[in-house]
């Protein structure tokens, strides 16, 4: 379990170095210096980029400022995805630090959601947790919680307090021993080449015959293309939290340990870099 606890900590404290640069088109009084920052993988962009915004506002006239949005190599970054997912999806195979361009104009309403305040992030986060618990425990656990317990989960994430968050999150990760796992595993599979944003279906951690389902089982069921055929070179990477777990890893364990704070297991399937 000591290893498992370490895994949880490593997941929580995972950081991505990022270099924020102001978009060339923005009107500035003088040249804006780039801003470097270590982004927590499990958090959300708009929650951690206050400093970035402040830095760039110094060189800008207030009348030119609109809602800030970020873009990586031409792709607008959806703030409602965890940062780690954004990175793994869009920049996992680029040179570090991750270059992010900051915009204050021309908000892409088609691609991004507006984020006027942190309460919007909180609502999004909590809805994720509730959906996940609906899958895991028919919402029993989360409904038994009090308002302050919900607040504790959110504050733990907002202030990067691992212990505070997990003191409560532990309850969401429990399951009856005789069932051998959750009712369904909450997961989302992100595909770079797909039109759909992600794949999400019902999937049990244990087969009707009593066999334990693995990551491989899941992918075979949901997206067989992610698994390389025998004898062929690998075409896709299955990335969770910036790592590629073995396909025989049990799905229940992954859900317990490698889920994001919103209790979903975010799996990114990205093509193997050509070079």
């Amino acid at each position: 379990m000591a290893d498992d606890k370490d895994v949880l900590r490593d997941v929580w404290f995972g950081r991505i170095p990022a270099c924020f640069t102001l978009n060339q088109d923005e009107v500035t009084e003088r040249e804006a210096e780039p801003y470097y920052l270590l982004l927590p993988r499990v958090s959300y962009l708009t929650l951690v980029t206050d400093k970035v915004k402040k830095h760039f506002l110094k060189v800008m006239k207030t009348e030119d400022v609109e809602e800030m949005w970020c873009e990586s190599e031409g792709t607008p970054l959806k703030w409602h995805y965890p940062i780690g997912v954004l990175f793994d999806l869009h920049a996992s195979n680029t040179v570090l630090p991750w270059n992010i361009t900051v915009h204050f104009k021309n908000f892409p309403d088609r691609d991004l959601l507006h984020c006027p305040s942190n309460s919007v992030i909180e609502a999004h986060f909590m809805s994720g947790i509730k959906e996940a618990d609906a899958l895991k425990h028919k919402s029993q656990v989360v409904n038994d919680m009090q308002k302050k317990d919900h607040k504790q989960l959110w504050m733990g994430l907002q202030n990067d307090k691992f212990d505070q968050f997990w003191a409560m999150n532990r309850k969401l990760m429990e399951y009856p021993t005789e069932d051998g796992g959750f009712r369904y595993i909450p997961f989302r599979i992100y595909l770079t080449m797909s039109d759909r944003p992600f794949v999400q279906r019902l999937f049990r951690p244990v087969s009707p015959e009593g066999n334990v389902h693995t990551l491989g089982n899941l992918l075979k069921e949901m997206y067989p293309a992610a698994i390389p055929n025998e004898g062929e070179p690998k075409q896709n990477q299955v990335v969770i939290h910036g790592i590629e777990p073995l396909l025989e890893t049990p799905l229940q364990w992954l859900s317990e340990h490698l889920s994001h704070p919103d209790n979903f297991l975010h799996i990114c399937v990205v093509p193997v870099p050509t070079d």
Partner: protein
Amino acid sequence: MAAEDVASSHSMRTDSAGESKRSCGFVQPGGHGGSGDTWRRHIVRQLKNRDRNQSDSFQDLIHFYSRLLDKSSWTNGILSRRPLTDSSSVSSLLNQNDQLKKTTGELAFQVLELQQQIKIKLLVLDEQDSSLLAERRRFSGAFDVRQELQGRAVQVQEENGKLKMEYDVLLERQRGAETRLREEKVREEHMLEDMIHLKQQAAARMNSRNERRSRAREANLQKELQSAARSKVAIDSSSSAPTSRSTSPKNEHQDKSAEPRHTRLFRSASATSPRILTSIRELFNRKRRGHSVCSQEEDQMSPVGICLSARVPARALQVLEAHEQGINTVRFSSSSDLLATGGTDRVIKLWEVRAGSLTHRATLEGSTEGITCVDFDSAGSRILAASYDKSALLWRLDDSVPKLTLTGHSRKVTAARFSPLLHQVVTGSADRTIRLWDLHRAACVQVVDVASYCSDLVCSENFIISGHYDRKIRVWDTRAVSCVQELPAQGRVTSLDLSSDHRQLLSCCRDDCLQLVDLRRWSHERSSFRAEGFKCGSDSTKAVISPDGCFLAAGSADGSVYIWNLSSGSLETRLPDKHSSSISAVSWSPSGEYVVSVDKSRRAVLWSDI
């Protein structure tokens, strides 16, 4: 939401992987190492790798960069302000310098002033310190004093507490004493009341007694008057009496001795018979009478005390209910003119015997129980009685209140006799002792323990003879107080009598037999007297010898008086019909003239030969 279309189509590859997971305990993914845990170790390793590549190498760099950024922006701010100051002239600077110098001087002056002020303040402070010290010392002194005072206060409080306790104790005692005082007062009142009551009772009793006495005196007077009316006839009969059985006179010249010493004379003249002696005395008396110029009344009285020969009674002169209850004992005085009867009604009655009738003279009270025995002293001035109340009482004849009460016996006193030594009496009791009492000292001088209940006793000069229930008659030497002789009897001894010459002893026993022993010879020769019909009625039935020693008299249970002739040993006469119950005692007057018998039904009968 994706539709639920989970099919159970697993590839062979994933199945094998699943099996390997199951074998290493998937349900609780523990930290135990194993070949199956490769996936876990892989993940840990990959995470470490990721962190090393992505964050660790950039961490410090980014940190320093942001600090540098902050600093550069700050310097930018400063640099942007500098050109404004540069534009001012040197003169203004010099001005400023001068001004500054001036202000420096002012400030220096101020510093000096302040320093002085500080010195002053310090001095003040020192003073205050010293005064504070003094105050503190005073305070400590005061504190000591206070503590001392507190100690004293505590002490005083303790003393007060003690005093309070003592006071409480005293209060309690006082209360107790008061209650006792109250009780005592109440008791005193009670006693006072009792005393008053007793005094009232005593006064009432005295009154009633006086009344009774005066009534008795009146009755006596009346009887005397009556007897005086009959006296003429009596004189004739009594004057003829002494001559009827007189023997020839002898020893006429033996006339020196005074009357009280007669008995002595008789005893010393032991050889002569009592009958002769009495006849001598009679003659002597007659001679004196002849020479004197006495009145008729005196003549009448004198012959009663002297007996030459006893006359066998023949008829009852008087029958009277003498007491209120049964009569136990009867006795003539030595001068024959007084008769005493004692009864169960606790009193002794004295009767004057005159002219063939009994006149009540006095009642002697004092005993709290019935009288068992009475005795006159030889002078006839005192009377002794034995009582059921365990005491013997002594009266003077002229006083109805007892002069002495002799207490000491533990059961009823059955016999009480004057000893020939005038100041001594002897008592016998049911407590199996015989006691000798000194009348001068009113105290018991000797106690003689006997083996048996003493029913009667008689006294002589040197010995005491007692009769007992164990069929023994014991003779005691009064000087050595030892049993000299034991004489057997046929039954329980009920009474003893000594003849006037102290030679013959009569005993009455429950075997209905009278026995006469000659004490002179100390022999066992004895003569028994029986009669048909004679029955000893009780354990205290008393029989007597006639004063001339010729007859025996005893009362029977059938109410008849039996008289035996001593010389012939046969029954002389029997006097029936006057008593209706068992006769308890008889007494023969020393003059030989009368016999009185008393019975259990209050009746007394005076017998004579006329």
